[in-house]
């Protein structure tokens, strides 16, 4: 068993990653609540945004402008998908809605492989100016990007929770989650509220894509499937609570990283999100009875 000191750096990386998982997990939950769609293409959208940013920065564009382009891209793609296919699939089973987003995932995945060919062996990377600067806490060096990762996670979670609680649009989203028909009858502009949710989720996907490209790797496959970790967090929260998602995301990030220094478990650390989500799903559903509802699992 490694000593406490060996764990410390992994706690830092775990919290930072957890913050980013929380960010995209919150996006998933809000979108699911407002539209009933589990957005499995979230990782792919963020990955493509990050790759575009990489190309723009390599081409000499100012960093902040390239970051904004990434957010604009992921927001626009997500919004366009939601506006075109959201209404077409509105009456269908949540499973069908989720599966359709796999189509978007495949399209983006193919496009990324086509445009940013990986066979050359050249390793791309996206770095933030904050990577090189940091401070020491005990024996651990913490860089500002890690602080930003956790900070953005906290800020987005708190912001989203407040937004859902206190604004008119947020109230409309919560109403949609409860009952679409009644909400529409009461005169809430359903399409517009849904559009806001799609756009917000897309922008969160872009932020997560940029941060993960820096923290993990700028690689289409890795980033596309990191959505599974955020999804694990969202599932632990049963796709309902934003704050629970945040806690679950930190847990997923921490467990995943704290297994790394244990030699026997190092190679299994990437299993953590899957196992946590599977166990949570099974525990939370153990007392459900069969029902006619199509919405609930």
């Amino acid at each position: 068993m490694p000593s406490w000191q060996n764990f410390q750096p992994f706690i830092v990386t775990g919290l930072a990653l957890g913050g980013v998982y929380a960010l995209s997990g919150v996006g998933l939950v809000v979108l699911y609540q407002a539209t009933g769609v589990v957005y499995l293409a979230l990782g792919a959208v963020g990955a493509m945004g990050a790759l575009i940013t990489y190309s723009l920065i390599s081409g000499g564009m100012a960093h902040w402008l390239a970051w904004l382009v990434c957010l604009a891209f992921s927001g626009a793609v997500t919004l366009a998908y939601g506006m075109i296919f959201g209404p077409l699939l509105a009456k269908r089973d949540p499973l069908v809605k989720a599966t359709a987003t796999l189509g978007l995932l495949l399209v983006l995945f193919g496009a990324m492989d086509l445009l940013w060919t990986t066979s050359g062996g050249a390793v791309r990377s996206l770095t933030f100016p904050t990577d090189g600067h940091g401070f020491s806490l005990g024996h651990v060096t913490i860089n500002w990007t890690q602080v930003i990762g956790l900070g953005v996670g906290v800020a987005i979670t708190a912001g989203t929770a407040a937004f859902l609680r206190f604004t008119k649009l947020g109230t409309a989203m919560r109403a949609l989650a409860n009952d679409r028909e009644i909400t529409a009858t009461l005169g809430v502009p359903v399409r517009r509220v849904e559009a806001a949710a799609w756009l917000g989720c897309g922008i969160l996907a872009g932020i997560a894509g940029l941060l993960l490209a820096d923290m993990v790797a700028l690689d289409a496959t890795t980033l596309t499937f990191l959505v599974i970790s955020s999804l694990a967090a969202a599932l632990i929260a049963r796709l309902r609570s934003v704050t629970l998602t945040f806690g679950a995301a930190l847990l997923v990030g921490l467990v995943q990283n704290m297994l790394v220094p244990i030699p026997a478990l190092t190679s299994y650390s990437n299993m953590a999100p899957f196992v946590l989500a599977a166990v949570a799903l099974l525990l939370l559903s153990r007392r459900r009875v069969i029902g006619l509802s199509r919405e609930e699992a």
Partner: protein
Amino acid sequence: MLDVAESPDSADSRASGRQSGLRLPARPTLIRAGVIVVLLVFVLLGLPQLLSLYYVDAMTQVAVYAMVALGLGVLVGRVGLMSLGQVAVLAIGAWSAARLLFGTGQPYPLVLLEAGLVTMILGTVLLLPALRLRGLYLALITLMLAGAVTVVLATLNFPNGGRGFTGYNGNQTHIPPIRRPSIATSDPAYFRYAVVVAVVMFALVAVHIRTRPGRAWAAIRQSEPAALAVGINTTAYKLWAVALASFVTGVAGGVYAGAVHYLYSIDFAAYTSITILAVVLMGGAYNLWGAVVAGLLMQLLPALLQNWGVSNDWLTILFGIGVVQVLTTAPRGLADQFPKDMAKLGKLLLGLVRRPVPAVPETGGETP
């Protein structure tokens, strides 16, 4: 339960209702059987002669993936379970087969059977606690379980002739190839072997669909509470479907192991599961031909594109568009849609040739 198609059974029941009273096999059935026999003879005898080795290998992969698609078709089309982790199941089958082939001298068919059974047991045990979940959550849990299995297999590594349980010796240079059956060592012979195995698996599933379990699955898909009310043990039959699908996919894994000779965990990437689901939905999950179409889409098209120098990524993009298209407009897939479209086209052409359109309704069949 899931409804990919609005009501998958209604069309079938209407079609068969017209022929009720007749007990003899109707003429279309005989024609269909004849077509299948002719097609099989051609595939087994003619195809390996006509094709280059490159395409023979591709067609062997088509047979493997047709079986994988068949297994997933049972899950999606019969009990409405969209598995997002079939590659992990295929990998379990391939791993077990490779281990048995290196470790024992058993005949190949026995190894295939055992690989299928091991996969069946593992698949059922893993999904047993999850069957309480339904719809979206069940699909997502297969994604999670498959992710976990993939990590385990990547850590264990595939057997390469080593000793011990894992059969992996860490040796990277002198790896013995996974053996093939003695009657089918050459590529064309192995292709025929794979096709025969696939035909057996298709027959197995066809028998299931036409008998008691098939009827139970149809009832469960229509309405789970109603099925329960008429005394169908829904959990047992769902588990049966999972077992059957895992068995078929495990056997496919065994055939795959012999086809490629060397197994690496990188060949079982997570996104392949998504591609498999895409081609199954595009081919049509309610139709056994859909599985053949899915196999062709998944393995023959890439081989063709590679030959023409077109990037495979275009295919990924096409599959992505295909999934969305199938889910929004043609929920029963190509195998169902294509003949209908062709029939429509035929009627259109016929109408152009025969200018004066007869006053008889074109649907036909209703005449006493």
